[in-house]
């Protein structure tokens, strides 16, 4: 046993512990060396989505330098903020940024280091660390197993590993995030940081819009091919905020929009007047932000999810909503207005809408011919595919890439996420604030769920970080149920 006065040392774990730690250190060193070697060899030439490409194409050792600078910055920041800020807040803020800022490299690695730092720091200081096991985290293990079937499908498994490794840090967040996010208060704090990060991204979007309009050049983080939108009045910039694709930005902004809409409609005992006003203002800003991403899938998913909010907020009024909604639907259909709107939106970029159906067929073909383990992650790009694009439909992507193994893994994950959410929402023991958070985050998943049918979202940082957060809800519920969580007032004044 160790105490806080006598910090744990490696040798305290005995011979086996010492050997394990030594092996881990050697592996970490070897891994670092391999990374630097690859970075020097290939640089950023093959990572075309990396925003650092904007700075200098094909730079060798640039990623190493960036990560090195991040480490130096992190160390300095930790040294500075340790007196004014906690490690938890660093983790929560980084998580919030990880959700909305694909263009900032190394965030998931940074978050992993912070989480492991907190974990091992506590273990070494106190002899143990509070690390609740999230059921979602367990399900994620199955996802990783399903993913690894790709090694059986490819001619060069090492290349697939090179794609897989950068994804692991954010896929396994479901296991590790509960180290820092395990109470209602921390969840609230995390959601607040998430909203703050979305506002930062919105600010970047505003700058992009103004700069693009002023210079006549497209100034966004989007790559060539989806940076502009052919509107009736001419080519228009598709604003991306801190994301690399306007559709992904719209997804993130819509998700946050649904969360703040839910908060804005909360009963008055759960929210102050000032915070409610703030939520409404943020909601309106996010609606505008989503609009200017010119993402039709984003508009659709945001609209559908927003329409669902009243059903969850006032379920006893559902018949009225259904009646009014049905009447409006009838009027829209009978007058041809809805069809006209649909045709108009569809024709804004018809080819972009149509090619998805072709790729979906390719994905289904791949699944039916390789039903067990599919054809490997991203295998559809080379499978009778003239577009050289991935399947733009998450369920079909799972079927095609991972086959039935993937279906089982993702099915388990979905069941775990929604059963745990349902448990929290329906439990009379649940803290009302936690229940409200669960409702907000749960309803906001509709956005990704809907948009996932027409976009490539399967291996994005946002999705897996969000799944990790959903897992944390159940962890917080269990912690609350034990009655030993040290609750603090809500965090509304902090943003």
């Amino acid at each position, binding site marked *: 046993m160790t105490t806080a006065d006598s910090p744990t040392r490696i040798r305290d774990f005995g011979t086996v512990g010492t050997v394990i730690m030594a092996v881990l250190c050697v592996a970490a060193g070897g891994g670092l060396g391999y990374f630097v070697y690859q970075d020097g060899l290939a640089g950023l030439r093959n990572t075309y989505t990396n925003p650092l490409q904007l700075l200098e194409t094909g730079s060798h050792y640039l990623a190493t330098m960036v990560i090195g600078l991040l480490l130096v910055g992190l160390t300095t920041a930790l040294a500075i903020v340790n007196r004014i800020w906690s490690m938890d807040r660093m983790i929560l803020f980084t998580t919030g940024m990880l959700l909305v800022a694909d263009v900032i490299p190394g965030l998931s690695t940074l978050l992993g280091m912070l989480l492991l730092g907190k974990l091992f720091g506590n273990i070494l200081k106190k002899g143990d660390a509070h*690390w609740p*096991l999230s059921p979602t985290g367990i399900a994620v*293990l199955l996802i*990783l197993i399903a993913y690894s079937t790709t090694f*059986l499908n*490819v001619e060069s498994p090492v290349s697939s590993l090179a794609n897989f490794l950068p994804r692991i840090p954010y896929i396994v967040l479901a296991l590790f995030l509960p180290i820092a996010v395990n109470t209602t208060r921390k969840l609230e704090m995390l959601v607040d940081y998430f909203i703050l990060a979305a506002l930062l991204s919105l600010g970047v979007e505003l700058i992009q819009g103004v700069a693009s309009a002023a210079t006549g050049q497209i100034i966004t983080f989007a790559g060539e091919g989806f940076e502009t939108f052919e509107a009736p009045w001419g080519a228009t910039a598709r604003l991306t905020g801190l994301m690399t694709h306007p559709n992904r930005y719209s997804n993130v902004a819509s998700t946050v929009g649904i969360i703040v809409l839910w908060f804005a409609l909360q009963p008055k005992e759960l929210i102050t007047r000032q915070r409610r006003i703030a939520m409404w203002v943020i909601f309106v800003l996010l609606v505008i932000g989503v609009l200017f991403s010119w993402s039709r899938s984003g508009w659709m998913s945001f609209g559908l999810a927003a329409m669902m909010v009243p059903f969850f907020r006032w379920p006893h009024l559902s018949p009225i909503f259904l009646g009014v909604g049905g009447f409006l639907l009838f009027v829209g259909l009978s007058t041809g207005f809805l069809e006209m709107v649909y045709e108009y939106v569809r024709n804004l970029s018809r080819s972009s809408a149509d090619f998805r159906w*072709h790729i979906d067929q390719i994905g289904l073909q791949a699944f039916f011919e390789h039903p067990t383990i599919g054809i490997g992650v991203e295998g559809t790009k080379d*499978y009778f595919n*003239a577009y050289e694009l991935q399947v733009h439909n998450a369920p079909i992507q799972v079927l095609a890439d991972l086959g039935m193994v993937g279906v089982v893994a993702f099915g388990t994950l979905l069941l775990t996420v929604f059963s745990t959410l349902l448990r929290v929402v329906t439990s009379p023991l649940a803290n009302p604030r936690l229940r409200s958070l669960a409702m907000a985050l749960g309803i906001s998943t509709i956005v990704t769920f809907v948009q996932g049918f027409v976009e490539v979202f399967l291996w994005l940082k946002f999705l897996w970080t969000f799944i990790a957060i959903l897992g944390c809800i159940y962890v917080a519920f269990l912690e609350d149920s034990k009655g030993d969580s040290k609750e603090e007032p809500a965090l509304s004044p902090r943003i």
Partner: protein
Amino acid sequence: MNQATSIFGAIYRRKHVVLLVMAGSIGVGLYQSAVNPPDFVATSEIMIPADALRLSIGTEEGNIPEDPLLPLQEEGRLIGITSLLRSRSVVIRAAEMLPGMDAQRLKTNIRGDVSKDGVVAYYGYGRTAEEATQIANASVKAFAFVLEEMSDLGMRENLKTFKANEGNAHLRAKETADAISAYLVSLETADIGTDMENWLTERSDIQQKLFELNSQSQQFQAQRPIVETTLQGRPEFVVSRQELSLPGNYTNSLARVATLSTELALTRLKFTDAHPEVLRIQTELDLVRVQAAQNADLVLSASTMMQDKMVASLSQKLVDIDIFEAGFTSQRDIYQARKLELDTLLAEVPGYRQRLTALQMEHNQARSMADKITSRREELEFHLEHGLQFSVIDPYAQAVAERAKQIPTPTGIMMFTSFAGLLLGIFVALLTATFSRMRATRPY
């Protein structure tokens, strides 16, 4: 289980489970590899030039200015190639090249892809490297054959269409040319442009003549009263010649003057000027001179009368004025009538020209189309006669057994079994630990 050490401990305590699951996973993987011989995959490539297949309206659109002659194909070229990769035609032909290979089985052993630069890759899967190689190469050959057939067929269909349209196109060109001729005939001109220039020149001349005519008329009107007045004030005839002679006493006086002058000169040689002889002679001389002067007037001896030239000229002028005024009105009317006629013709010129331009354009278009169809027909006939290759099969890009790869690769099997085994082991360890904990807290 919510403490780090619990989690680590649970895994550590079940390290044998973890290791067993991992070892089992690796063992099963190796066993399966040994029991079930792996498949092999070989890659064979064929290159299709970017424009080879563009025999549809996509190419002809630029050449032929009028309505589409060929069926419109909106599907992308690459998508068309993709759908061809594992078509029944390709698979059956590939199976024919592989003795003992069933077409249905072959279809499941082929995978294909096309890149945006037109490289088609066939992945052949087989039980042996040789079989995979043969499948890949046979697929490429079958694909090239079908592609050639399709492209050739497409060209022949195009040729048929061109031939069917060529006659009509030339007939149309002739009709438009005839329409131009007929129109020119109806205008009674061969060249409306030259005619118009002539009309403009003539009109300008008439305009000038009218101006001169009017000027002349006004000039004569002003002259007439002056001429008439002048004529009235002048006799019709005037003396045109008179003969005059000197009188006889004047001649005598002149002779006396000469005699006296001589006598005076001689006398002065003898005497001074004051001599009475000199004075007498001088006086006499002066007297005679006075007499001569008094008798100096000429005497009209004969005169001739003739008509006054001015009168004659003025009379002629008056006659001219009368003649001019007699013809002025009719001459002016003729000029104005012609001018009006020319104006009418010139006013119609833009319409003529517009119509002619339209006819000419129509003709040019029809002629151009007919010529291009003929040109394309000749071009296609030439190509079909000499033959075309629509794809490139590079021997270096063909599959060879030495380059065939085992699928799954030994590395892939090891990576999968060890990684998945480890994760599964941890999964089982955590699951059993959770169940143990649940049994401990809720034994029922």
